[in-house]
Structures are given as structure tokens and as C-alpha cells.
């Protein structure tokens, strides 16, 4: 399989991940969990943001760093209720990803559906791979 060495790195969360992991369990995931996929034309970032409203998410691209931040607001629990289990984390989140391709900032699109934030970042013409013809 083709292996890339210039993987995008998340800059934030590393220290926090370690602190959280040691406190709770060895495999506590970064929050929110993200997948980063790439094809010839675009980079697709998918983040799991269950229960987060679209107006509570902010996406910023600054140079080559994409930052996703937001807030998951707590839901209302009626009075006289007893909470038996509370695993869903309600807090602010922020993650940054360094992109290794130039993307067309004007054509970035993002949507939230079924608790998934999907950001599509089209590559600029110049950064798309192309075959070179041998004359």
C-alpha cells in the first residue's frame, strides 16, 4: 500500500488526550473523533459531533491549518430526576488539522447530518496531482 509520510497532524488535544486517557482509561478517544480522507480532487474531514447544532460549530481555515471548534450544550433534565449514567461529554471542543495541500478556501463546504460534521475542501488546481506526459 502507498504510505504517506506527510500526514496532517492535529496540533491540539495531544496534551489533553494524555491527561484524559490517564485519568479515565487507556483508550479514551480524542474529541471529537475525526476521519481525514483524500482523493485527487478534495480532502474530506468528517467529525463526530452528536447532539451539536450547526449554529454552535465554527470552522476556520488559516493558511494551511483548519480549525474546528464548537460547543455542545447540555440538555435540560427535569427536576426530581436522578441521573444514573452520564457518559456523554458536554463541553467545548477544538481541534486543528494541518493540511498538506493548498485548498480553495472559497469552495469549502460543510454540513451536519446525523451527528456528523462533513467538511469538503477542494484542492486548488495547482496542488492536484497530474500525470506528466513524456514527449
Amino acid at each position, binding site marked *: 500500500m502507498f504510505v504517506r509520510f506527510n500526514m496532517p497532524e492535529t496540533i491540539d488535544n495531544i496534551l489533553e488526550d494524555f491527561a484524559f486517557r490517564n485519568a479515565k482509561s487507556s483508550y479514551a478517544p480524542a474529541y471529537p473523533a475525526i476521519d481525514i480522507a483524500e482523493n485527487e480532487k478534495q480532502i474530506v474531514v*468528517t467529525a463526530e459531533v452528536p447532539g*451539536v447544532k450547526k449554529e454552535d460549530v465554527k470552522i476556520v481555515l488559516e493558511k494551511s491549518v483548519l480549525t474546528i471548534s464548537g460547543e455542545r450544550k447540555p440538555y435540560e433534565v*427535569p427536576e426530581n430526576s436522578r441521573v444514573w449514567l452520564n457518559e456523554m461529554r458536554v463541553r467545548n471542543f477544538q481541534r486543528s488539522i494541518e493540511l498538506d495541500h493548498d485548498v480553495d478556501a472559497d469552495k469549502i463546504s460543510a454540513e451536519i447530518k446525523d451527528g456528523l460534521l462533513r467538511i469538503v475542501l477542494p484542492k486548488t488546481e495547482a496542488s492536484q496531482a497530474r500525470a506528466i506526459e513524456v514527449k
Partner: protein
Amino acid sequence: MALVRWNPTRELTAWPSGLFGLQREMNNMFDSFFRGSQDEDTSLSAWAPAVDIAEHDDAYTVKMELPGVNKDEVKITLESNILTIRGEKKHEKDTKKENYHRIERIYGSFERSFTLPTTVKSDKIDAAYNNGVLQITLPKAEEAKPKQIEVKAK
């Protein structure tokens, strides 16, 4: 190549006698005891969706984080006060041809069971999936609702 969840501590935990070595070996022992022999990546990828459970006067509510799960892939059963939620999170089909730089999301099947402390009206259970969160409302049976006892003066 199999899709494997990215885990920054994998190298640390993989040390045979490192910082986490003993814990790791213990986990493996338990894992292999309960699961039978499966490869390592399967045991690392096993997951349980986060759940909130609250009890109200007249009902229980169970919320489960299931981002990107098709609601038709979720099965909810209640059998003598044991609520079981099982399902599967599948990879989106349209991304299969792409190169993945990073996979942190966990895919595969899950199952969680909870024992409810009181009986519920099994025919009145309601489940809704909204914005990646499954919410199940289980109304308590009449005899399980709190009753206020009036003190009478004689």
C-alpha cells in the same frame, strides 16, 4: 488493508515490558478469555457508544451517541427489565476509494445492555434518532411510580 482506528498510544501500549506493559497483558488476557481468539486490532477497535440514563418520576430516558449510524441498523429489545441496544456503524460507501490520512472514528458493531430497576410499560417505549443521538423513553409501569402517602389525622 484493513481499516484500523488510529491510536496515538498504540506504540506505548505495545511495549512488551514498558510503562503500560502489565496493564496491556492483563487486558489481553481478559480479552482473549471473553472473546476467544481474535486478532489484536479487533480488541482495540471494540467500542461502546456513550450513554446517559436518567430516571424521572414517570419514565426513564436513555440517550446514546450514535453519530453516522443509520437508524435502521439499530435494534432495541427489552427482555425482563433488561434493555439492550445493538447495532452497527458502517463506513460511508462513497469514501471507500479515497486515501485515509487518519481514522479515529470507530466502526463496527456494538451492543450495550442495562438492567432497569423497575418495570416499564413495554408497549409504550418510544425511540427517536435525532442529530446523531438516539433517545429512548421508557414509561414506568403504574406500580413503579412514586406514590405520595397522605398522613391522615385521627
